[in-house]
C-alpha cells in the first residue's frame, strides 16, 4: 500500500465489507466505496438505516476488518484501532465505575501518564466542553447531553486527527441536539480535526457538513457527494439551505423506498 494520497486525512479505496463472508448468513454491507476526506474537513455520511454507513466508520476506526479495498489514514494503511482516529458512539459509552475526569483521561491512563498530568488534561478538556463542574461526578449523575459531551472530551484528550461520529446525537432530544451541534462545531474549529459524521437526519447534515456523502440502500455505495457551500454559522432556514435540503431529500427518498421494499420482501420471505 503506497503513500498514495498523503494529503487526505482519510482515503477509502474501493472499500467493500461483507459480514459473515462465506457463510449462508453472509450479507454485503458495503460495496466499492471511494471517499477522500481532507484534513480539517467535515463530511456527513447520509443514508437510510442499515445502509452500511456506520460500518464504514468502524472500518476506518480499525475496529472491523474490510473484505476488499483499502483504507488509508494520513497515508498509512489502517489495520487496527488507534487513538488518532477516535470513534464516538450513539451512546456515550462512559465507563460507569470511573468518575468523569477518570473517563476523560482513560486513554492516557492506559499509556502510563501520571495522575497529576491526567488531572491537568481533564481540567483543560472539560473546561472547553463546559463541564468543569462535572469533574468529580459519576456518569450516572449526568444528563444524556452531558454524557455525550464527556465522551467527545474523552476523544479530544487523545488529540485525534480524525473524529468519527456514529449518530452521536440520535438519542438526544431536539433542543439538546441543537446545542450539541454547536458544541461539536466549536470543538471542530478549535482542534482542526477532520470529522466524519454519520446521520440519517438531512437537517443535521445541512447544518454541519462541508460535504455530504449520500449512501444507497444495502449494499451501501456512495450515490452522490454534495458540496455544502453555505457560510457559517449556518441558517438552516435560508433559501439556499432549503434548496439543498430538497436536493438531499430527493436523493434519499429513492433509497429509503428501496430499503423499505427490501425489508418488506425479507419479512414476507421468512
Amino acid at each position, binding site marked *: 500500500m503506497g503513500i498514495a494520497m498523503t494529503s487526505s486525512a482519510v482515503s477509502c479505496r474501493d472499500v467493500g465489507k461483507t459480514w459473515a463472508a462465506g457463510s449462508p448468513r453472509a450479507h454485503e454491507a458495503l460495496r466499492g466505496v471511494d471517499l477522500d476526506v481532507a484534513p480539517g474537513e467535515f463530511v456527513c455520511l447520509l443514508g437510510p438505516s442499515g445502509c452500511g454507513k456506520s460500518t464504514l466508520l468502524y472500518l476506518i*476506526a480499525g*475496529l472491523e476488518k474490510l473484505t476488499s479495498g483499502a483504507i488509508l489514514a494520513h497515508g498509512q494503511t489502517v489495520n487496527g*484501532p*488507534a*487513538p488518532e*482516529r*477516535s*470513534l464516538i*458512539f450513539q*451512546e456515550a*459509552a462512559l*465507563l*460507569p*465505575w*470511573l*468518575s468523569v475526569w*477518570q473517563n476523560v483521561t*482513560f*486513554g492516557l*491512563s*492506559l*499509556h502510563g501518564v501520571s495522575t497529576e498530568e491526567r488531572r491537568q488534561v481533564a481540567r483543560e478538556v472539560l473546561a472547553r466542553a463546559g463541564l468543569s463542574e462535572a469533574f*468529580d*461526578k*459519576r456518569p450516572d449523575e449526568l444528563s444524556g447531553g452531558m454524557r455525550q459531551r464527556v465522551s467527545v472530551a*474523552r476523544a479530544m484528550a*487523545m488529540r485525534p486527527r480524525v473524529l468519527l461520529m456514529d449518530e452521536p446525537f440520535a438519542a438526544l432530544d431536539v433542543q439538546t441536539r441543537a446545542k450539541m451541534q454547536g458544541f461539536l462545531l466549536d470543538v471542530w474549529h478549535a482542534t482542526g480535526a477532520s470529522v466524519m459524521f454519520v446521520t440519517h437526519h438531512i437537517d443535521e447534515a445541512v447544518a454541519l457538513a462541508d460535504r455530504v456523502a449520500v449512501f444507497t440502500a444495502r449494499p451501501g455505495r456512495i450515490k452522490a457527494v454534495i458540496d455544502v457551500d453555505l457560510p457559517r454559522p449556518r441558517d438552516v432556514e435560508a433559501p439556499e439551505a432549503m434548496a439543498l435540503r430538497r436536493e438531499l431529500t430527493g436523493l434519499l427518498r429513492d433509497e429509503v423506498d428501496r430499503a423499505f421494499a427490501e425489508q418488506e420482501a425479507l419479512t414476507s420471505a421468512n
Partner: protein
Amino acid sequence: MGTTATASPRAGRTNAPKHAPSRMFRLWAAILGALPKLFWTCLSIAFFAGIWEFLWYIGWADPRLLPPPHIFLGNFAEQAQFFNTAERWTIGVDASAGPSPTMAVLLTIMATILRVLAGLLLATVASLMLGIAIRYWAPVEKLVLPTVTLLAPVSPVAWLPVAIFLFGIGNKPAVFMVFVALFFTMVLATISQIDSVNRNYINVGRIMGATRRQIFLRVILPAILPGLLVVLRLNLFGAWMVVLIAEATGVGYGLGQVIMMARNTFNPGLVFFTIVIIGVIGSVFDFTLRAVQARVLYWVPKGQASMGGG
C-alpha cells in the same frame, strides 16, 4: 448549620461545611430508612413464632415433636452441651472439661463458616479463572465448556459419595462439596457476565490503544464485578445448604453434624435451635455481601485505580 436540615445534600454551595452535614444527613437517612425494614423483620418473626406458641398453648403442637421457640431457645446450656462434642467426648477427657457452652456453640459455628468460606473462595477464584479462560481461548472453550455444561445441573448431593471416596472424612470433603456445588454454575455465570459486557466499552478501550490485558483488567473485570457479586450472593445460600449435607457425613463438629446428631438422638429442640442459628448466620452473610455490593455498584469516584474493591 442547623438550617441545612431541609436542604438536599447537593444544594449546599459553600465548600467548607458541605461534606459534614451531608454525610451526617446520609447516615441518619440510612438509619431511619432501615428502621421500618427492621420493624417488619421483627414483626414477621414474632408473627410466625406467635402462631407456633399458640398452637403449643392450645395443645395442637406436641412439644416432644414440635417444641415451640420458648422451649428450644429457653435453655441455652441444655442445647449447647451437644455442640463441639467431638473434643469433649473423646475417651480420657473429662466430659465437663473443654470450652464453656457459649464457646462450644461459637466454635461449632466458626467451623461451619470456615468451611463455607473456604469452598466459596475456592469456587469463586477457580470459576472466574476458568470462565475467563473459556472466553479468551477458543480451544479451552471447545474442550471444557461441554463438560461444564453437562455437570452444572447435577445436584451436589450426587457428589457426596465422590467427596468421601476422594477425601475420606474431615474438612476436605465438606469444602469439596461446597466447591463442587458452586463451581460449575459459577463458570457458566462468569461466561454469561463476560458476554453481556457492553461491546462499546471494549471498543472504547481498543480505540484508546489498550492491550488485551488492559482491556481485561480495566474494562471487562470492573464491568462484570457487580454481576459476579450478585451471583456470589445467590450461591452463598447454595453453599450454606450443601455444607450441612456435607457435614452430616463425618466432620469433627459443625452445624450439620449437630443436626444429624439431633436426628439420631431424637432431639427436635436441638434441630430447631440449630436451624435458628443457621438462619441468623445466613442472613448476616447475605447482609454483608449486599453491603459490599452496594459499595461496588456506587463506585467511589476518588479511587486510585479502578481495580479496588474486588
